């Protein structure tokens, strides 16, 4: 590797091939599955509606991953830490939301206006609850270790993820639980040329888009958002400029936790089953999404989330649900090998 980075050491053709591979390799790898299955569909069924359905399901599923991935990417951008506990925060988001449905008294029989108000209240409360939880995790597990070697906060993150998983286990037991299908999520809303859009898809997109827009505007425009970007770039310089770095980091964790809480609510309504272990896989999938888009880059996280949702749907639908995690992780390894900086990311110090 050390020798490979010396430019004169390799012939021009090889260098061009390398450059090509590093620029378009990831896109080519990503296109393998849809193109292969698209051709397969055209030959066997004559149209692309199955692939279209996969794509549409992937978009709604992917918007959940996008919300979780933003949490990873924000935290990584600002403290260069993979917040392993983030998947578990998402899991608790589902649990809190389901608990709140019970408290408010939402059932499948509730009328549409009541349902909408109830869902918005639940969304806000669970977002705040999970945001606060994420801030507390940062206070307890990461802040004391800010100047320790990099391994240390990563290990506490893993530790915290196990603690939260066990909280979930104690809360709702060790098996998958079905919850009441409040929005009748599998019912078809519209049918666009063979592509069926369900209530669940609609909800996922309808919650995600405003949240992501609000969040990006907040980071781009507000004073705190500016402080976040400054801290991400150089914490020491930011401190010298009078930015309260600790508050800024807390705010980042707050936003990440809020988005994970929202994602947890959508997930609960969309899948209608929840269990304590959902956060582990979801966390890894969302992390893959964040890396795919380029870690530290919010638009990248959204793009990565959607792509991963798509990959996941294709694999669920055609290869088998039991293989999906392996396929997603294989993509993760491939990205790490060929383009650790991701689709939209710049070279980071870590991924170099």
């Amino acid at each position: 590797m050390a020798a490979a980075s010396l430019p004169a050491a390799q012939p021009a053709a090889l260098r061009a091939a390398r450059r090509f591979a590093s620029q378009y390799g990831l896109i080519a790898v990503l296109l393998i599955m849809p193109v292969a299955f698209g051709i397969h569909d055209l030959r066997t069924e004559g149209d692309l509606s199955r692939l279209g359905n996969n794509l549409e399901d992937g978009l709604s599923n992917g918007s959940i991953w996008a919300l979780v991935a933003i949490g990873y990417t924000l935290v990584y951008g600002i403290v260069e830490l993979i917040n392993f506990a983030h998947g578990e925060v998402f899991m608790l988001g589902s649990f809190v939301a389901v608990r709140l449905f019970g408290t408010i008294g939402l059932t499948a029989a509730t009328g549409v206006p009541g349902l909408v108000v109830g869902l918005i209240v639940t969304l806000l409360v669970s977002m705040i609850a999970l945001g606060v939880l994420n801030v507390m995790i940062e206070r307890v597990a990461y802040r004391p270790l800010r100047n320790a070697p990099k391994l240390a906060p990563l290990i506490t993150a893993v530790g915290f993820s196990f603690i939260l998983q066990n909280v979930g286990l104690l809360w709702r037991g060790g098996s998958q639980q079905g919850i009441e299908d409040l929005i009748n999520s599998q019912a078809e809303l519209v049918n666009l040329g063979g592509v069926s859009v369900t209530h669940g898809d609609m909800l996922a997109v309808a919650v995600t888009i405003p949240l992501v827009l609000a969040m990006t505007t907040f980071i781009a425009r507000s004073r705190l958002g500016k402080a976040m970007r400054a801290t991400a770039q150089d914490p020491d310089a930011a401190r010298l400029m009078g930015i309260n770095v600790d508050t800024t980091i807390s705010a980042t964790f707050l936003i990440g936790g809020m988005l994970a809480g929202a994602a947890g609510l959508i997930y609960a309504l969309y899948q209608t089953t929840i269990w304590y272990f959902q956060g582990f896989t979801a966390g890894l999938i969302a992390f893959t999404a964040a890396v795919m888009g380029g870690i530290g880059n919010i638009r990248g996280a959204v793009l990565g989330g959607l792509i991963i949702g798509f990959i996941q749907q294709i694999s669920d639908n055609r290869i088998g649900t039991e293989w999906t995690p392996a396929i997603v992780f294989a993509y993760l390894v491939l990205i790490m090998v060929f383009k650790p900086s991701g689709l939209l990311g710049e070279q980071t110090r870590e991924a170099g």
Partner: protein
Amino acid sequence: MSAAAAATTAADPSSSGRPKLPREARIGLAVAAILAGALLPLFIDGEGGFIDDATVALAYVVMALGLNIIVGFAGLLDLGYVAFFAIGAYTMGYFGSLFHITANNGEGIHILVSGPAANLPGIHVNFLIIVVLAIVATTIAGMVIGLPTLRLRGDYIAIVTLAFGEIVQRIAINGDDIKVFGSQLTAGRQGITPVDKIDLPFLAPFNSLELRPWYWVAFALVLIALFVNFRLRDSRLGRAWIALREDEVAAVSMGVPLVKTKLLAYGTGAAFGGVSGAFFGSYLNTVNADQFQFSFSIFVLAMIILGGLGSIWGVVVGAVTLSFINNRLIPDVLNDVPAKIGLNFDLTELSFGIFGFLLVIMMVLRPEGLIPERRRQIELSAGIEDLAVDEESVYEARVP
């Protein structure tokens, strides 16, 4: 290479706050510990739960010493160590069970086995040969998993190794659907069982009633692992690992070969996981996909964190402690505590929450572990004023 050694030395202010025992005392302590360990089974019941827990603890020590090479010495955080456990265990399952029942037209293949296994169908190979096969398989696997991480640093390595661990587990779970040469790849969640008992030359095959021989085999594996760990740590390779851990750029510019050094760390560390995995396969009498979960990697990681990253004796203490907490303290001693204070749950369900808590507490309060490696203790806790270097201790650190 001498330059690299010099760099290591320069980055190594080897005096610490802890008074250092004289060499004779340390050797005496080590010999006493080894004797005590070897003679322990003579004083306890050969069937009871205690020797079972002790044997499992020793097998975990081997595994933790392996992970210590990767994480403690070379500083590569590996969260997918369970992959090597799985590969070692499956080596045992493939070459020492009824799994390939159609092999050799149902008559079986037998290589240097005695006892009941010699008449069964399937492939049955002597345990020592299986250990060698497991070492080869896991070393290769370790290097393959290491390759994609060569360009990466820090947390990215953790994620890639974690992803590999998950992929291996997925293959283990779903392997019963994959047909290779007409037989299943793995037995999935059903597990390969029964697995051959250990069968050493000149000794009768082991059985599951008399556990002392199992203990001594595990103890011998621990001694080998300890020997290799100590020799490697003080070798040129070990110093190269530590140099890479401390500062990769500096180490590489001093001439430490990055690719070779890192891959050797993965390979050697993985080999111990494989040996221990083969032992576990035989001892637990099953090779089951549900054994190979992410939490297992964290369990082993917690052992070396508890004991002290990079500190060999610390890792031994950490592994024995956690193994006993997991197999004895939580299920047998503390399990009815929640019921007594009026809570309705089983403490065993929460064991990984407890380990997670332990990881957090250790990292926040005592990141250097119970028995810290001296170099890391300085790095983590001591201030500049404590870094008085005296020539003798620098020399001692390299040639103990």
